Structure formats: structure tokens, C-alpha cells
């Protein structure tokens, strides 16, 4: 399980926790998020902009 950070606002998508408010259940891999996924907090960075936190 990996975590990915939004480079603008610091939101972290943690695959172990998912994001239930956005409809992504715990265990949903980052790769499984839709291609048009954007940062749920700032919305100005897209999936391809996210950076892996855990290297």
C-alpha cells in the first residue's frame, strides 16, 4: 500500500484508507482511481501530478 501526495495542497491519498467520502473504499489502489481523478481538496492537480510519498 502506497501513499500519494498532491503537490499543491498536501492532500494525501493513502491506498490503505482510500477516501470513503469521495467513494473510494479502503484498499483502492491509486492506479485503480479513474483517469480523471483530481485532488479532492484543491481540485487543481490531477492524478498524473501526484507524487509517491513512500518512494
Amino acid at each position, binding site marked *: 500500500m502506497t501513499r500519494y501526495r498532491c503537490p*499543491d*495542497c498536501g*492532500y494525501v491519498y493513502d491506498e490503505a484508507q482510500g477516501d*470513503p*467520502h*469521495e*467513494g*473510494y473504499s479502503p484498499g483502492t489502489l491509486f492506479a485503480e482511481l479513474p483517469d480523471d481523478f*483530481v485532488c479532492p*481538496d*484543491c*481540485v*487543481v*492537480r*490531477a492524478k498524473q501530478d501526484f507524487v509517491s510519498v513512500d518512494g
Partner: protein
Amino acid sequence: MKTYAIAHPQRGLIEYRDRKRLLWLGSLIYPVVSLSGIGLYLLTGHEWTLVAPLVANYIVIPLVDWLVGEDPSNPPEELVPALEADPFYRWLPLLTVPMHFAVLIIVAAFAGTHTLSIGGFLVLALTAGLYSGLGINTAHELGHKKQALERWMSRIVLAVPTYGHFCVEHNRGHHRNVATPGDPASSRMGESIYRFSLREIPGGFRRGWAAEQERLQRQGKSVWSLDNEVLQSYALSAVLQLGLIAAFGWIMIPFLLIHNVVAWWQLTSANYVEHYGLLRQKLPDGGFEHCLPHHSWNTNYVASNLLLFHLERHSDHHAHPTRRYQSLRNFPDLPTLPMGYSGLFLIAMVPPLWYALMDKRLLALPHVRGDLSRVNIEPTRRAHIEARYGRNSAPATAAHGTP
């Protein structure tokens, strides 16, 4: 005044004296200005004094902006985390929420219990709508925050202007598509505010509803679920407005209809002036470049910014939407509006005046320099605009860097 300080490993002691700290109470108190007319009426018995809040908004504030002028300064970036963590700044917008409810209820109660001329009644309904529209600004500041309390309070305060879809639409729709031709909340060069409103009002509602429907579908829920954040706010609006009708009678129906439309018009006006004609460039992959500060119009007028939680520092807000109001920055060479919002909202309602004020300003921007391919143009006015200004009167400079 408060002084923030940090011992920086390379730069030594960095200090910032926050001179405007207490002046931010203006954003908390501003909604109460709406009651000044009622206060003067009760003191003098003259109905014409009810116009006081409209005079304050459209004449006094632009005048104070002109007298006090601009403040282009920014807090040191190293101290922004401390500034953002200051509970004083966190609580101001939260405490503004009950002000909006109180204002609507008091003005409605006054209109419902006093014998007034039609003119007096209209002025009260306009006043209530104008200052409830300000509630959308409070919801805007709260709705961008990450904490659940702020997000809940944003939905609650949106019940006052009856615009429950705003935060969903604004965050997930407008911010994503701002300054692109398809964004119903970004106005185009040559587009009057009236034509814009026919795109912006229904387009915003549809986009907000669709975004919430998609989120709930991913959760396996119906759009009619109690977790629908748009419906939660509208349900509270229904309770509030039906309660006012039950309390003060049928006269509340025209009052609230006018109030609602005027409140919505405040957001339409803000959206109209904030991105007029600005355009993000398309990338080779078909998407748009990131939103940069020069994709929003900015102003640094002190007074109106202090009354609007820094909404007029809009360039940094769109580039970095989760920054709190107290730490929004000015940048060099930003698209700059010639005055604060309330004066501009009036000018926008007279399209020839608006075009005369803004079109040359838009074309003269450093990243545009007359290149119409860098302008978001109303399609039905394109031929007219190209004939008047030429397709490309000067080459544009390279896009600005990302601050």
C-alpha cells in the same frame, strides 16, 4: 496587532507584524451593515433611510477603497504556516455564519411587520438579497477548507442565499475548469453579464448536481440520499424560508423571491468579473495548463478585501485554492481590476461601460499583448472583436511561471 516570528536556519530571525489582524473583523461585521437602514428608520421615522445599506455597499465602500488605496504586501512565506494555524483567523468566517441568518430573519421580520410603500419593501428585499449574497462569500471561504466543521458550516450558510449547490459546483467544477471556454462560471470577452447569467446560473446548478451524483454513485448511493450535500443545504433553505412565510405571512413570498434572485446575482457578478476573457492554454495532450495566477483578475484594495475575506486576491486563490484568506498573496504583473467588486458589479450591469473599462485592459495583459488566441471570446462576438482589434496585434510573451 500581533507579531509572528520564526528562527530560520539560513535567514535568521524572520518577523511579521500583522497590522491588519483586527481589521479582519470587518468581514464579520459587514453583514450587519444591512441593518443600518432599519436602524435609521426606527430612529428618524423616514422610510427613505432604508437605502442606507445600499449606499454603504455601492458608494461608501468604493469611496473608502479609493481613499485608503491598495496594499500589495505579502506575509513572509516562512510564517504562513503560523498565520494559517492562528485560531483567530479560523474562527472569523465560522462566526460570520450566524450573522447571515440573523440578518435575513431580522430584515424579513421588519418587512413582514411594518406598513411600507412598495419602494420601501423593494429596498428591503434588495438589501436582504445583497447581504445574503455575501453569505456565498462566507461559504466560499469555508468550503475550500479541509476541516469537516468548515465544510459543514459552508453548507449551512448556503441555506441563507438558497444556493446549496454552490460549494460542490465551485470546488469540483469551476476550479477545475476555470478560464476555459466550457466553464459556465468564467465569463468571455464580449459576453454581457446578462448573457453570462443564462449560462452561469443553470450551468452551475447542473454541474454541481452532476458532481454530487457522481460522488454518491461511487459510494453506491442514490442522488436522493440524505448524504447529498447539495440537498442538505437546500433542505435547510426550505425550513428557513417556509418558516419565514409561516411567521410573517404571504408577503414573504415576493420578498424571498426578490431576495433569492438578488443573492444569486451577487455570485453571478463575482464570477463575471473574476475571470473575464482570461484563457488557459491547451496542452498537446488535450488538457489545459494548470491554473496560474494570471488566469484570474486581482485587486489589492484594502477596504473591500477586508470586508470580503480577501476574495479580491483572486489570482492566488485560484492557483492555490486551499490557502486561507489571511495568507493569500499578490504577485507582480497580475491581471488587475481597476476597482473593488461592488463598484465593478454596478458597471458590469451596463455592458458598453464594462467593455470600455475592461477590453483594452484585457488585451494589454503581459501574457496576451493583443493575441486573441490567448483570450476567451464569446463565439457570437468573435467576428466583431476580430474586426475591431485584429486577430494578433502583437506576439504574446511566454506563459508566466508557477509561483
